[in-house]
């Protein structure tokens, strides 16, 4: 009995540690000014996020197929997509700065506000939720909203993709937080299809014709179509 509860504790601690790492990566990505660093942070975040289901209590009885799915998620989120982005940044020789519309300090501050927002919402929803892990929902909401924020507040096309990726990680976490029954599990895994969109976007950036119509992949240049 004692052994069981200590194992219980350690798993809970581990998932808490993972959540803290995720929040840390969110804050780092908001404050980082180098594109390469941002890609690396996203790779790290992808790995941490896709490992999370392993360390949640209500996922302990994972069967073989869900382990396989988890490995696939880990591969896509942690290696494939970041690898793509790495290649894109290398290939198109864009300037290495992130070029924010909203400055780094303000972004960081916004990130802290998102944590507060996440805590507030998680508190509100607490009554009707099956999860025992408080941090999970807070982290999920923070990641989701920080991703949306990053998407809107950075000028480069590739940073928008990174913002989108972060938002998607947030959605995956929310899905994991809500997943209790078996049929939810497989709904969450469909989120991997969003990675397909991310892949397409990165391909669009890398593809030759984007490079030749622009010197720089900057969405500020994507500003010709507008209403007069």
């Amino acid at each position, binding site marked *: 009995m004692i052994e069981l509860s200590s194992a219980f504790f350690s798993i809970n601690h581990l998932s808490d540690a993972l959540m803290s790492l995720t929040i840390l990566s969110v804050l780092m990505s908001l404050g980082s000014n180098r594109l390469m660093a941002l890609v690396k942070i996203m790779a790290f975040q992808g790995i941490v996020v896709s490992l999370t289901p392993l360390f949640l209590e209500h996922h302990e009885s994972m069967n073989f197929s869900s382990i396989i799915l988890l490995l696939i998620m880990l591969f896509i989120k942690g290696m494939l997509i970041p690898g793509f982005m790495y290649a894109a940044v290398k290939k198109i020789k864009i300037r290495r700065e992130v070029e924010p519309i909203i400055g780094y300090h303000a972004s960081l501050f916004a990130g802290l506000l998102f944590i507060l927002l996440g805590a507030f919402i998680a508190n509100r929803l607490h009554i009707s939720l099956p999860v025992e892990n408080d941090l999970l929902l807070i982290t999920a909401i923070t990641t989701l909203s920080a991703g*949306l924020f990053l998407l809107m507040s950075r000028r480069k096309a590739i940073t928008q993709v990174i913002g989108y990726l972060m938002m998607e990680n947030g959605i995956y976490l929310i899905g994991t937080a809500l997943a209790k029954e078996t049929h939810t599990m497989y709904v969450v895994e469909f989120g991997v299809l969003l990675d397909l969109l991310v892949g397409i976007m990165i391909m669009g950036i890398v593809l030759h014709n984007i490079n030749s119509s622009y010197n720089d992949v900057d969405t500020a240049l994507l500003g010709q*179509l507008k209403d007069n």
Partner: protein
Amino acid sequence: MLELTTIIPFFAGIIAIFMPVRVGRGILVLTALLHLQLTVMGWLGKITPAFPEYFAVTDEGMLILLVTSFVFLFISIYAVSYMSETEISSEPIYTGCTLFFLSTMTMVTMADHIIMLWIAIEATTLMSAPLIFLHRSKTALEATWKYVMICSVGIALALLGCFFVVMSMDLGGIHVPITFSSLGTVADKLDPVWLKAGFIFLVIGYGTKMGLAPMHTWLPDAHSEAPSPASALLSGALLNCAFLGVYRCHQLLYQAGLGDFSSNILVGFGLFSMLIAAIFIFHQTGYKRMLAYSSIENMGIIAFGIGIGGLATYGAMLHLIHHSLIKSSLFLSSGNVLLGYGSKLVNKTGNMAKLFPKTFTAFFAGFAGISGFPPFGIFISELLIIMGAFQQGRSVVVSIFIFALILVFAGASRLVTKMCFAPCENPEILVKENWARTLPSFALLAASLILCIWLPDSIYETIISAIATIGGSVNG
């Protein structure tokens, strides 16, 4: 095996990509014919879905499938002639992607599983993005980027909405397949809070695709940058499919007894879209952008009608049919204008009545139709929506509705009269009009006209049983 309507265009698309241009055009038209044939067979109940756990025949789905298939046939006939006149580097890509696009849209109309619907709507984004980028210009790139980016965010939020709906199932302790049809039977046991949250996210997600303001920003760019047949397809078919997503969710909420909540949201989004369109249509300089804003307005009208309920839902369904017919006809005509003058700006056009008499007739008639003049169907549908709203005693919202309609008409008529009658500065015609590129527009308009005068019983009954699921009927 109703799934053939999805599978056949998909494989035809793969073949078309690897075939020479002329063969590809043949495949396009042939597939369109075959698709219509299968759709009609589906209507008659001759073929049914082979995978009932994912696909189902629903009244609203079949209605939208029929409209899509019909519009697609005429657009593909038009595209054959249009593509031979315009300079496009990779026509096989166009042919292939249009067919893929048809395949994914068909999948949307039949999807019953919540996730299947979501996948299908995501796939429409992926398959239509190459169509927008076909001209490979800077502006086309920008339009495509915006389209993919904004719709992807929308689709991600819709997935979150799906999670919430599944969550409401868990909390309600229900174990049924996650399909709309089986959820509908146990809707009252679903957890209302999470269902509402799910609805909000789903409406924002699919509403982005449908062009509801304020998530509409991709729509004018994409519609104006895509080649005209693709714009016609986006406006006449894709927006309906996205609407179907919203409709299904509204249906679920209605069955769960939360109809008031979702109706009010739809009315709000609808009115806001109409007002935004009315404001922005005033200062447009491009005629394709003008048509795009008109699409936003019309999607707003449909959302409004569905939200009002009662008689207005019948009007909204009619509006959906007629908007598809008339708007795709207008986009096809605008393709002729673009070929003729070589510019998307209203100022570079003029005196269409003299220079392009056939296109002028189609364009002007289409404009009259979309503005709600008889003898076209939008007259009836808008009238029914207004009457329905008065029956429900919603006099404030209906006055905003009428006000927005008038504004849109004023803004659009300014541009249309300039295009049709104002003197043209350099009356140099690049590409002459021909019957191959005007007859499809006329045919679509004629279809709207005929449906306005004589609505076949089977379509009438389908609409009635479709709106019955959200509490609508012709008796108010």
